[in-house]
């Protein structure tokens, strides 16, 4: 069990904490903007993980129907509102906004306490066998009901 390392899902929202290290900052001594994309990737990955992506039932269905699957980012809209600095403790929040047949829209935020630093809307597609496929029903239901 990895416990709090992967964050938690509560009321359909995934939350995880990220600490800012020196390697995340740039010559202006703030978090270099592209690093927020890395933090949010971790949020999406752990959200899917906690929804049971690596549980047996999901894998069985997925591998049967769609061997060699992966999620890919199709588009992102990001607003960088306030900077983060060294040692900041950030909260990365991930919420499903729209779960359709072949793509998922996630809303994400990076917060520092009450301050909203970055917002993003990220569209994911589900690829298997090199082609876009429908999102597996088990995953869709998990997102809609989580």
């Amino acid at each position: 069990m990895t416990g709090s390392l992967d964050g938690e899902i509560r009321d359909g929202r995934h939350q995880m904490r990220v600490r800012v290290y020196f390697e995340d900052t740039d010559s202006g001594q703030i978090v270099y903007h592209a690093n927020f994309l890395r933090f949010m990737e971790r949020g999406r990955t752990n959200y899917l993980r906690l929804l049971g992506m690596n549980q047996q039932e999901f894998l069985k269905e997925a591998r049967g129907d769609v061997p060699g699957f992966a999620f890919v980012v199709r588009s992102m809209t990001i607003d960088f509102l306030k900077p983060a600095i060294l040692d900041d403790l950030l909260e990365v929040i991930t919420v499903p906004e729209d779960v359709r047949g072949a793509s998922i829209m996630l809303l994400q935020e990076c917060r520092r306490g009450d301050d909203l630093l970055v917002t993003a809307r990220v569209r994911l597609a589900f690829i298997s066998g090199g082609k876009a496929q429908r999102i597996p029903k088990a995953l869709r239901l998990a997102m809609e009901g989580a």
Partner: protein
Amino acid sequence: MERGRTNHLRLMGAEQQALFEQPETEGAGFAFVVRSMHLDFLRPARMDDVLDIVTWPVAVKGASIMLAQEVRRGEDVLVKAEVRVAFISGGRAQPIPKSIRRLMKADLIS
């Protein structure tokens, strides 16, 4: 695409170091910051691909510049982006220096 934006400024003669001589940049800590981005990931790239990063201004305002960018592999467009950039000096948002606005406006395609 960050490299494309940086080199675009560099070749326009607005190397971020050279701005030290301008009055707007007196005092420490001036920099361009990305305010927002929209990205479309259309096709993948793979190891050994040679990519072209294309960057051009689409809007030049007082406080921000909007750049369009594309990542291409030959004729294929792999990624499209719109990036809004602002100018920070002394820890606060400032108007884009006139010299840079002038240079960018010259390249605007309207």
